[in-house]
Every structure is written in C-alpha cells, then in structure tokens.
C-alpha cells in the first residue's frame, strides 16, 4: 500500500490567489493511498524543502506529489530533496497548478476544481511510478575528429591540449583543408598559410594526436562514451615510417602533367606527389590512377631513387579499429560545381554561365589559387587560357546561393566578403585593372566586415552593380557579360577578360553517406543538423557526436574556429567524468512477449534498438527479440506507441501510468 504525501504550494500568492489551496489539500487527503496532504507558502524555499524531507521520514511516505509550478521549473529541485530524504527521486512527481491553472484562470471555483483534478491525476500516476536507478555508462576518454581542415585541427588541438588522446582522420593526403588553399583572409588580409601551417605542424608534433591521412571512416558502431570506429587507411604506396620527406621521388618523376586538385586543376603535379609544399605529413602519395607502373608495369623511377626504400607498390588498403568516446564531425564544404547539372540532384546547373566551357570563367577558389603566392602562377593574376593579365575582371555573386529556382535557397555567407577581398587582391596586383561585381545584396555581418567591404569600393575602386547576370559568352578573347543594373534600371554589357563566379558553399560530397554511418541527421542539402538551432548548436541529436565548421552550414573561419573550440569543450565536458550519468527515462523491452517484428527498430530515430537472440541451454535459437540500448535511447517513446504487442515500455511514461491518469479524470 502506498503512502503518498501531497504538498500544495501557495507560491506566495501566485497560486493561493485563485486556487483555494486548503480545500485542495483537504480533498486530496481523502483519496485512497494519500497518507499526508498539506499546503505551504513556498515549497521550493529551504523551510519548504525541509518540511517535505521531514514529512517523508516522519510519515514514512512512499511517494510524493508536489503541486506547485511547472515541472520544467522545479522538478529537479524536489526530486533532489526527495532523494536527500532517502526516496528514489523518480517517486516524486509535480502537479502544475500555477502555469496551467492559477495564472490562466480567474474564477476561483473553476480554478480550484481544476487544481484538484490536476493533483488527483498526479496522485494516481505516482502510485504507478517505479524506482528507477540512474543509468551510468563508462566513458572511453579518446575522441575521433573527422576532417583535417581548420575545424578539425582546432578541435583536435583543443582536446589534445587538455590531455585526451585524439584520432584525426583526413580523406586527403594532407591535413589543411580549404583554408590551406586560400591566399589571404578577410577582413585582415592575413596570409592564410602563415596562420594555418603552424597549426598543422602542431597537430603533427602533438604527442596526443594520432593522425590518419589519406584515410576514411568506414564504420561506426556503439554509442556515447563507447564508439568503435573502423578506419580505412588507403594504400599510400609510400611507407610513412621510412619516408624522410626528401622529395627526390617527386623531382625525378617523369609524369609531371597531372592536374593538381589542390590548385583547382590549373597547376600540375607529378604522379607521386604531396598536394602542396607545406603538406602535413610531408609524405608523398602515389596516385595509382595516373601512375605508369600501375598501368604498364614499367617506370618505377621513384622506387629506384628513394634512398630509404620507402616506396612500396605492393601496399594494400588496411582497416584499423579505434575505440573512442566522442566524435567531432568537421568534414567541411565543397564549392558548387556549375560545369553541368549534377546527376540525381534537385539542383539545376548554370549552363548559361559557361563555366567549364569558357576557360577564363573560374570559381572563387580558383581565384584564391591564382592570387596565392604558393599557387601555380606564383601569385600573379593570369588568365588560365593564355596567361595574360586580365585588365577587366567581373565577379558574379550568389551563383547557386539564394536561388530558389535553381534549387538552393540558403545564403552561402562567405561570398560577399571573399569577393570584396578578391577585388582588393586584384587591385593590389593589377594596378591598371578594373573590377566589377554583380551582386544582389552585400551581406557583411561580422566584426570589421562592413568596413572591409566599404574599403573595397571606396579605396580599391571596385564597381558594384546591383543586379544579376543573365548570360556570358565568348567573343574573340573577351567574355561578354550581359546583366542588368536594377539601381539605374538599365542593361549592362561588359567585355571582360576574366569572370569569377562566387559559387555556393555545399557540404562535402558523400556527406550523406558519412551521416548514415554515424547515425546523425542532415537536411535536404546534406548539411548536418544540430540538436537545437540556438541552444545546442554544436551537438548532434545523437549523443556523443558533435559538429564543427561548414559541415553544419556555411561559415567563415572565425565562426568555424569558435564552433570547433565549442565542440572540443563539449567533448571535454563529457570526458570530465569517468562514468556518464543519465536520466533513466529510457525504453525497455518485455522479452517474454516480444515477437521480434522490429517495428520499434524501424521507427527509432537514434538506432537504439538492436536485435538480440534468445537461446536455450543447448544454444538453439528460440527467438530474436528487440533490445534497447539504454546508453543510446533518448526516451521519446515512439517505439512504445508503435509496438503492436505492447512489449516496449518507456520508464516514467508507462501505459499503466498514463491510463491511471486518464482514469482519474
């Protein structure tokens, strides 16, 4: 028999003004199972909580209902008090008679009747409450960072500096990402490599960071605190331990005309290569698709000239399994290619801009490589077609972005600023040149950003034309840009030497596939979804996985670095305890009744439900049933409502409890 204690709070006058609290206490006192019912001015105050604790001990109460404000306000307070008095905290429930009653009704009689109903409902519910032990899960204090751009590097360094081991996985042969490709950065015009490469070296030298470059995440199993990650190390064909990074192989390689992806395919590289001179690690990779030995079985010069004998044509892809407790996803972005309409995508291409057909129509990243001192032109702005200096250059903004009719409705955020930067870099390098920018709006929120943009117009003489471009076509060695100036209301035609398109920022290719491996959600553009747009911007809804950088949405460098540090802080919070405690509001399977239809597994958004085999003593399979992993379950209860045999139960919200509440009405 339960001995329930009911405590009605006056909340000063907030409740007692419209609710006759004494009458509520008297009425509730008559209910079966209620051993003690009282009212008090401020239940949440120290004397109020002491009253509660004393009553639990003196009256030998088994369950507690506190009728006061919203449980969103003080449920934790009272559950703590109940725990201090020696009861399981989940045997305490709150009845909301303030926000849902006294504050929203003026009629005292109606409000009092409603308050009695609300408290009565909770009394019936609490009778069915069970003791729920707090769930603890062990935490492996190592973390995985996916992506070695500035986001991944920052997160890895922050976590490693805190003393926890980090596994950094990068798909390309070197870390650095897109930031390593940039020439200078807005709004300070710092050289990107100057601020980036020291961080890359820090990663390489950090004793707590284990770097896997030219590797990809193959499989992710487990849950928060206990992930098992399989990483595929692609065959580099060069032994990382033996290679000294002398670079003789690259100087001797006879194949020197392979377009370098790092230079946006305008620069050339050899078949055995490092993507750029400051690469970390400084170990070359053999591009097997373009490597003579792999095609014809001949050449092999690199192997002959390699002093330490590091070149190894026989190397195979290998799989490594690492145990980690948290994962930071920092896979970054890619620029929207407007060469052709992407296959199977709702995004329509930009054939009218001639990118991919007219050689002097390039994208923003290609311009970065042209402007970069370490780029293929040594920092000179030269046309890819004939190597001449362009005297008239047109920048077109919002190519792909903010174009609903083309399939992308979001703003790519960085293009306004980097185009302003491009006009400056151009003006610094081509003094007699003229830059034109076609734009919709200039979006420059950020510290010193608007000043920077204004400077590009006022001091660096860029001409901004508000309006879009309808068509580009080649005329002799010029590109005719046809657009409109909506501020003046006239058609504009510019004969340009070069056109730079600010193409949309998109998630990396294959972002959706990685999300499926990780079990995290993504939007229709394949940007990863955060748990809450405002209050949990770095966490995924899947516990233990955090986001950093442009994989979550377009971002500039300062924002990316902030988010990466925030993600690292979240990981460190997780690692600050040896065991992870969580609310025991999780689903449980009644195995005896489970028929193994796994309807629950299909609806679980967290992948918390696994198949479990039940065997007899001889090891014969009796049946397969569902099993809920309490570490992963978020406690939504969708499985319970779905289960056709009513064999999944969400602790804290069982059918018994709900039906008891409905029957109390």
């Amino acid at each position, binding site marked *: 028999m339960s001995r329930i204690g009911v405590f009605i709070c006056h909340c000063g006058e907030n409740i007692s003004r419209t609710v006759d609290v004494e009458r509520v206490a008297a009425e509730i006192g008559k209910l079966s199972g209620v051993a003690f019912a009282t009212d008090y001015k401020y239940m949440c105050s120290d004397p109020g909580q002491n009253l509660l604790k004393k009553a639990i001990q003196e009256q030998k109460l088994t369950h507690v209902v506190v009728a006061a404000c*919203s449980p969103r306000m003080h449920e934790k307070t009272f559950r703590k008090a109940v725990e201090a008095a020696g009861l399981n905290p989940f045997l305490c429930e709150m009845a909301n008679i303030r926000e849902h009653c006294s504050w*929203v*009704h003026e009629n005292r009689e109606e409000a009092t009747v*409603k308050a009695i109903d609300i408290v009565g409902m909770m009394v019936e519910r609490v009778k069915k409450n069970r003791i729920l032990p707090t769930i603890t899960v062990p935490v492996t204090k190592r973390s995985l960072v996916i992506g070695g751009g500035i986001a991944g590097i920052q997160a890895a360094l922050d976590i490693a500096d805190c003393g926890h081991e980090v596994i950094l996985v990068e798909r390309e042969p070197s870390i650095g990402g897109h930031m390593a490709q940039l020439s200078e950065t807005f709004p300070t015009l710092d050289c990107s490599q100057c601020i980036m490469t020291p961080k890359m070296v820090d990663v390489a030298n950090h004793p707590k960071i284990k770097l896997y470059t030219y590797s990809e995440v193959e499989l992710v199993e487990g849950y928060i605190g206990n992930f098992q990650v399989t990483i595929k190390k692609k065959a580099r064909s060069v032994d990382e331990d033996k290679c000294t990074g002398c670079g003789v192989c690259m100087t001797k390689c006879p194949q020197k005309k392979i377009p370098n992806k790092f230079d946006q395919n305008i620069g050339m590289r050899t078949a055995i290569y490092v993507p750029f001179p400051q690469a970390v690690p400084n170990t070359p990779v053999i591009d097997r698709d373009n490597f003579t030995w792999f095609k014809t079985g001949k050449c092999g010069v690199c192997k002959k000239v390699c002093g330490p004998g590091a070149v190894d044509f026989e190397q195979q892809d290998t799989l490594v399994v690492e145990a980690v407790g948290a994962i930071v996803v920092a896979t970054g972005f890619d620029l929207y290619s407007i060469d052709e309409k992407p296959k199977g995508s709702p995004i329509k291409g930009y054939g009218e801009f001639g990118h991919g057909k007219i050689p002097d129509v390039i994208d923003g990243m290609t311009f970065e490589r042209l402007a970069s001192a370490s780029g293929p032109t040594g920092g000179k702005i030269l046309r890819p077609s004939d190597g001449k200096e362009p005297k008239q250059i047109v920048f077109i903004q919002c190519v792909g972005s903010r174009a609903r009719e083309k399939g992308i409705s979001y703003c790519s955020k960085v293009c306004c600023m980097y185009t302003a930067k491009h006009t400056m870099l151009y003006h610094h390098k081509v003094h007699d040149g003229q830059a034109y920018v076609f734009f919709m709006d200039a979006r420059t929120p950020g510290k010193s950003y608007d000043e920077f943009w204004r400077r590009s117009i006022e001091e660096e003489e860029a001409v901004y034309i508000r309006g879009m471009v309808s068509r580009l076509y080649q005329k002799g060695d010029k590109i005719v840009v046809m657009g409109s100036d909506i501020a003046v209301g006239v058609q504009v035609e510019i004969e340009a030497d070069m056109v730079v398109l600010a193409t949309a920022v998109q998630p990396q290719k294959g972002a959706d596939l990685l999300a499926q491996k990780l079990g995290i959600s993504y939007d229709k553009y394949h940007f990863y979804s955060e748990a809450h747009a405002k209050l949990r911007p770095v966490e995924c*809804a899947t516990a233990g996985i955090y986001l950093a950088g442009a994989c979550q949405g377009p971002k500039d460098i300062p924002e990316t670095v902030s988010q990466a540090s925030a993600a690292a802080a979240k990981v460190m919070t997780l690692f600050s305890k040896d065991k992870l405690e969580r609310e025991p509001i999780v689903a449980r399977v009644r195995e005896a009744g489970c028929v193994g239809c796994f309807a629950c597994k299909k609806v679980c958004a*967290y992948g918390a439900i696994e198949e479990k085999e039940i065997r007899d003593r001889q090891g014969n399979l009796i049946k397969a049933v569902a099993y809920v992993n309490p570490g992963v379950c978020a406690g*939504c209860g969708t499985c*319970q409502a*779905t289960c056709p045999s009513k064999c999944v139960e969400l602790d804290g919200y069982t059918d018994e409890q*709900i039906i008891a509440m409905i029957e109390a009405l």
Partner: protein
Amino acid sequence: MDNTIKHDFEPKIIAFVCTWCTYAGADLAGTSRMQYPANVRVLKFPCTGRIDPVFILKAFQQGADGVLVSGCHPGDCHYIAGNFHARRRFAAFRKLLEFIGVDLNRLQFSWVSAAEGGKWVEVVTDLTEKVRTMGPMVEFKELALEEQWSGAIDTPELREAYDAI
C-alpha cells in the same frame, strides 16, 4: 474578480501534449498571464510519438467530450522525427474514428511551439467552444454502460437464460 459567463454545459477536454513544445507553450501562456477556459486537463508526454491512439479512446471512454493532441511543429521535433510518426499514426486513426462514428470535430491535432503561448490559448479556447456547442459526447458513455449491462446478470430474464445453459 469573476467575469466568466455561466454555461449550461461545461465540456471536459483532455489535452495530450509533448513536453518540449506544447507543454512549454502552455507554460508560456501561464507566465504571460493569458486567460483561457478551465475545461482542459493536460497530460504530458515526452513526445507526440509516445501517444498511443488507445489513450484517445480511453479518454473518450472516461467521459472526455473533446481531445486535443499537440506537439512540436513538423521538422522541430526534439526527438528528430517523433511527431512525424505521430502525424502518420493519427491520420490513420482519424479514419478509424470516423468509421466507428465519432464526430471528428471532437478531436483536434495541432502544432504549438514553446514560443506560441498565444496559439495554445487560441487552440484550447476554440476547441472548448466548439465542443460546447456540440454538447456532451454520449456515444462512448452509452457503450460503456452497455458493456456493464451485458457483464452483469441483473434481470430475471437473463438469469433464467443463464441458468438454462
């Protein structure tokens, strides 16, 4: 101060809401001191995805004249997709209720976010007034009585028939 109008019939409304959006929205209505009819009784769930259609039937059986189900807006679910599962489930469930002859005006689904205290007041007020004009929901109560009648042998005719078996 008592300026409420007295009505002949006070409907009983039961609201099933999710804790993250609608419950918080109702809390906001309270903090903003908005006023609405006192007929509604709120049951809190973690997510609308947890709400079993059986609860709605049970509520009608227990004498509810109107039922409200409310959660996060589509796409805003705290549990990623629970409200989508709820939406599908209740789309089918409405057909069933219609088939067994329940006036669907008594059952309302809505999305009320944590920021929509005003919308909560609107939804609750509208449903209460609508159900008030419809009058009490008698079908399920009659059915419940019928069940009771058939369960207990309390007439001489029945007793005779029972004994004869």
